[in-house]
């Protein structure tokens, strides 16, 4: 291992995946690629946080179904989200009867969970591992910024947190795209303090580590 990138010998396969998004995302250019588009942001729950949890449960169940494995074939769940104590993933994990490993990487949580899971599968310790991440505009917005009903203006550089959840099943066997390499990132902080300009905060990392 020369640098931060690791090469996998067995190359875990992604044998099933599932995505679920909110109504706004469902109107975008990628709408045909999502497995399920929610009709409203609450997804039949009382709070947005509960909706986020249900999205994760749906994504995990969907990915396992699409991988044609049974619930008992899954050895581990690696998941994370944006909320404090990665609470949505942790609560969602209650619904499943396999061990859970919580990860947090903000925008990189999906990549991080796949990288961690691939390492575990490649090492031969686990056969089938589910990776999952989710975010919800309404839960993230109130945790990081302002209440939804506050009449403030967004600057032109502000981003919009996705309402959606994605999940995939990694396996030693089976057919599908292979995970060949993974690079674990360093924390790069070039002193951008504007909460509305996350692009500028993240850009130096890409420039340093490279694609």
């Amino acid at each position: 291992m020369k640098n931060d990138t690791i090469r996998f010998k067995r190359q875990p396969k992604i044998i099933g995946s599932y995505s679920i998004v909110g109504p706004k995302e469902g109107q975008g250019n990628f709408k045909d690629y999502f497995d399920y588009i929610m009709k409203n942001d609450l997804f039949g729950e009382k709070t947005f946080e509960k909706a986020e949890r249900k999205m994760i449960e749906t994504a995990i169940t969907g990915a396992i179904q699409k991988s044609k494995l049974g619930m008992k074939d899954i050895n581990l769940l690696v998941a994370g989200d944006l909320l404090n104590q990665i609470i949505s993933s942790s609560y969602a994990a209650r619904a499943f009867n396999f061990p859970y490993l919580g990860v947090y990487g903000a925008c990189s949580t999906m990549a991080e969970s796949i990288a961690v899971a691939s390492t575990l599968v490649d090492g031969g310790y686990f056969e089938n591992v589910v990776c999952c991440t989710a975010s919800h505009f309404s839960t993230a917005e109130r945790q990081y910024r302002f209440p939804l009903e506050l009449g403030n203006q967004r600057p032109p550089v502000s981003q919009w947190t996705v309402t959606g959840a994605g999940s995939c099943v990694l396996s030693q066997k089976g057919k599908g795209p292979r995970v060949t390499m993974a690079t674990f990132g360093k924390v790069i902080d070039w002193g951008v303090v504007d909460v509305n300009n996350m692009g500028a905060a993240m850009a130096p990392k890409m420039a340093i580590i490279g694609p």
Partner: protein
Amino acid sequence: MDIKERNKAYNKYVNAKIPKTRPWPTLFNSFWVGGLICLIGQGINDLILYLFPNVSESSAWAYTLIVLIFLASLLTGIGVYDKIGRFAGGGTIVPITGFSNSITSPSVEFKSEGIIYGICVKMFTIAGPVIVFGVLSSALVGLIYYIIYLFV
């Protein structure tokens, strides 16, 4: 390169590149919506004085503020005020309606966490500094007023 200098140079670069808010349309919208809110306030005040001739002018102003606060809270509750605010910016933040919105919006947001721990605790998360400095500065002004009166 020194970390501080690197960060400074990078932030300078970012500020040169980011799209800026266009000032004239923003100022214009903020001006006329803010003006309209003041006009409505004046209208309510005149209406109160017309309908209830016994009400003194100073209490009529108090009633006007109450009506404006109520209207802004109502519009926040039914999800209209944030849309007006997104359009008008400072025009809806500066009048008392903006203050009302800043208290009602967290209350609506945190309703799901209960009445005490949700609504009551979170109600002042945005308006808190305004209230703290309002109370402090009024106390300070009162003190100065008192001291001046001792000598005059």
